[in-house]
């Protein structure tokens, strides 16, 4: 195994090994568990850093192992995967910290953190897989390792949410499996790096490829929560807040969106996809999802549910960017993969803090919460403004590129969709901000806890502040060479390059 391959394996193992070790820890060995968790997260981040620097210097990374006859297990690091890997590794660190604070004194922590680590391993694996079957493998591992997190609380509601989650995602997985086998039958093993494998057969197998594209979208669209496959997402809200953060911002939904990016760019290739006329329907579906999610969000009183429908809507921005032909829209979609992640995780951290500190679960209970918890609310506000797309916060950058890309591609109707969506975003976020900052707090909070000198546990406070700062930085410093935007431009240049 080459050193390059070892690095990739190391990135996977840095969460897998601690995860497995944590399973077998006694419930009371709190210190050891925390240490392992943080150690794994930090090591992973460092390794990802090394990877990014090396790739930037032009080294290529890949690893293949024998897996199925004629079909290896393959890992690799291209620009697309780095984008997702960096996001996941970075947010993983903060989510871990948050989860440690959030779950203090609750039961079954070894089990929880074990699966938590497996979940991130799967996500990183999704990012690093270099062919479809490897992708499928980690995609399914992700499903399986998330389930215990969703049903962690062991309540009846959690069970129902978990079963629904499993039903949706495994059905999607089965459809994806069918698509993967089928395309393998058609083309042989499909590795992501080799572009244009499809060009030769586009005309001869037109219908088959269109059908396959549909299957891929059905399979992956479940995790990306495309309407009408989104039904599991709001129900999965029963999970503890760090899990929601993970599901929405880091792992599951993102893996879905990333998968769509992979299929369109690295399996079909934009040109072949455009020749097959499959992008237009995808764009329409994404637009429908954007509007539908926003409208549903408008009517949710439960904070986490509102955020969940917001996710349904926002993730489709990424899909939309992918589905519109042209580099600018691509940049918008890819950069939103990062931006949506950091914004949404900030929002969920905020929601978790309200619930954990004050017992607030509903929007209607949030009056004056900004005075009781100014730091959390500030972070929450930044996230919300980003979602609406207020300049100069990160969300603005994505929407701007999407808008421009749509116009360049001659799809003006998309601009309308984006405008409507922004209005709707404002309509469901601004009232929250108004309540939080400008209404007077009630005499008693539903269930208040005190945590010494800070407004809440420091482990709950630091993560949202860090991610909120990032939301601002990503927007303000968008033109700097290391920003997500710069990276997205690089990928778009490759995709549409000579």
């Amino acid at each position: 195994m080459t050193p390059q391959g070892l690095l990739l394996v190391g990135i996977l193992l840095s969460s897998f090994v601690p995860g497995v070790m944590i399973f077998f820890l006694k419930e009371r060995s709190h210190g050891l568990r925390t240490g392992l968790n943080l150690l794994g997260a930090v090591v992973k981040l460092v390794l990802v850093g090394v990877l990014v620097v090396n790739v930037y210097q032009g080294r290529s990374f890949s690893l293949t192992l024998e897996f199925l006859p004629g079909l290896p297990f393959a890992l690799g690091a291209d620009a697309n995967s780095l984008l997702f890997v960096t996001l996941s590794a970075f947010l993983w660190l903060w989510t871990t910290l948050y989860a440690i604070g959030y779950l203090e004194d609750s039961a079954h922590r070894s089990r929880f953190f074990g699966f938590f680590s497996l979940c991130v391993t799967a996500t990183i694996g999704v990012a690093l897989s270099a062919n479809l079957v490897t992708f499928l493998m980690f995609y399914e591992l992700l499903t399986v390792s998330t389930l215990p997190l969703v049903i962690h609380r062991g309540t009846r509601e959690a069970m129902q949410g978990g079963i629904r989650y499993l039903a949706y995602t495994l059905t999607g997985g089965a459809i994806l499996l069918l698509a993967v086998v089928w395309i393998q039958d058609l083309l042989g093993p499909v590795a992501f790096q080799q572009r244009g494998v499809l060009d030769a057969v586009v005309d001869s197998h037109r219908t088959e490829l269109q059908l396959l594209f549909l299957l891929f979208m059905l399979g992956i669209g479940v995790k990306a929560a495309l309407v009408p496959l989104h039904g599991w997402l709001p129900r999965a809200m029963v999970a503890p807040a760090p899990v929601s953060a993970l599901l929405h911002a880091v792992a599951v939904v993102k893996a879905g969106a990333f998968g769509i990016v992979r299929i369109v760019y690295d399996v079909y290739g934009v040109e072949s996809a455009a020749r097959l006329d499959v992008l237009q329907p995808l764009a329409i579906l994404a637009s429908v999802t954007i509007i539908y999610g926003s409208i549903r969000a408008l009517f949710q009183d439960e904070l986490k549910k509102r955020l969940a429908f917001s996710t349904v809507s926002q993730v489709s921005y990424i899909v939309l960017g992918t589905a519109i032909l042209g580099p600018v829209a691509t940049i918008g979609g890819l950069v939103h993969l990062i931006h949506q992640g950091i914004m949404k995780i900030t929002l969920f951290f905020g929601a978790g803090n309200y619930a954990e500190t004050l017992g607030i679960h509903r929007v209607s209970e949030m009056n004056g919460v900004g005075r009781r918890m100014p730091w959390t609310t500030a972070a929450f506000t930044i996230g919300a403004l980003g979602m609406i797309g207020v300049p100069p916060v990160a969300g603005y950058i994505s929407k701007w590129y999407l808008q421009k890309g749509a116009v360049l591609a001659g799809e003006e109707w998309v601009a309308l969709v984006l405008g409507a969506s922004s209005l709707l975003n404002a309509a469901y976020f601004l009232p929250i901000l108004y309540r939080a900052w400008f209404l007077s707090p009630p005499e008693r909070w539903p269930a208040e806890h005190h945590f010494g000198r800070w407004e809440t546990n420091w482990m709950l406070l630091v993560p949202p502040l860090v991610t909120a700062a990032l939301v601002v930085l990503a927007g303000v410093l968008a033109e700097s060479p290391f920003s997500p935007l710069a990276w997205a431009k690089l990928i778009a240049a490759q995709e549409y390059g000579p």
Partner: protein
Amino acid sequence: MSHAGSFASMILAPLAAATLAFIFPRLGRWLAFGTAGAVSIAFARLTRLLLDGGVQVHRVGGWGAPLGIDLRADGLAVFMLLITTAIGAAVMLYALRYFNARRSPAEGHQERYFWPLFLLLWSALNALLLSTDIFNLYVTLELLGFSAVLLIALDGRRAALTAALRYLFVSLSASLLYLLGVAIVYTRCATVDLTLLATRAQPGFPLTIAIALMTGGLLVKSALIPGHFWLPPAHANAPAPVSALLSALVVKGSFYIMLRLWFEAFPGLITPAAGNLLGGLGAAAVIWGALNALFQKRLKLLVAYSTVAQLGYLFLLFPLAAGHEGRFTAWSGGLVFLASHACAKAAMFLSAGNVVRARGGRDEIAHLEGMSSLQPISTFAFGLAGLSLIGLPPSGGFAGKWLLLRAGLAAGQGWWVAVILIGSLLAAAYVARVLVHGFTRAPVPGPARPNSPLMEWTALALAILAAGMGFLSVWLTDLLQVGAPAILIPPAGGAP
């Protein structure tokens, strides 16, 4: 000379150990331990010989077929021996702690008879896998069936004894049908050797009837719908290590003979319609078994019905491996699936046994609260084994389904694809049902009686083996290539 020792230890070591364990009951566990060692070494040597020198044939008595009986180790046989050895050894370790004479006199009785019966079963399996003589296979089938029945009856409760008796009746009548087929085949071809039959078998009504009789008997023994009715009560009521052996290995014995008959002895006599009939029954089993599993109230019955469903997949091999393309792919897919199911199901029964035992024998699924915190390792093993049953990557179940799906698409038989996928989803449903119940909070940490770590870890080891078997699939497929039936490899171009 080189391979004779391996053949002898494979079959005679467990047989001798069983006899000694009967004479000296106190030595049972040590004899079993020694047998596992001897069989493992013999297996390793046999594998080496096979990979270096190709198919190994031993002429017992020095006569050779047709007058004598041949033993043969080809890729398929060694593949099956691998599974048998691994699971046999694991179950042996598990049983060391499962039956404990110090706990109660009843368990002492069970322990005393478990070892000889277990060792006899083991030698019957090895003998079955190595034999190329269809009459000799009849004797091994009976040896296997009797020991299986008696191991079930060891449980001693009413349900177990009733199930054992029913199984005995079914098994005996199926064997007689098989024997009748053998009689016709012998008359027609003047040999009972599989290899010679391949050259001597001529199409015609008598042989068709003979094959139908033998297949019918074997189908019932391998619990294919509609001959499955005996399986769930038998497998669910046996002691845990026995359930593991039955589901993982015993039902596969008769399936293995079917493979030998259909693809080796009589490939020219099999019509596509017959293959499709078996495939159709297999598909029905996949769906029907899974639906039944889904609605069971008892954990072990759920697992047993899951066996009915999973065995159905194996029969998809018959139409697919007779298709015009992708024959070897289907063949290897079915067999990798078999191997993975064996490990996964053994792990599942062992871990279910742990859970049930810790609950003092209660195994209602509705009462599994707190399973994940009280028996974390067993729950984990159950879940991992479940992944393989569902067919999630990188499990062996995935590899097997992948190959079957490839073969199905290559042969243009898309309907089997649908069956495989729907079956996977149903499997997910019943596995999830158990795990979801297991994740509910225990009201009070019940009066759990702790299990020996050896029992927990044996189950986990098998589950890990099943869940990671995808990575072994290339090696396993290469192994299956050695001496694979000629019909599987199309003359022009190799297997895909």
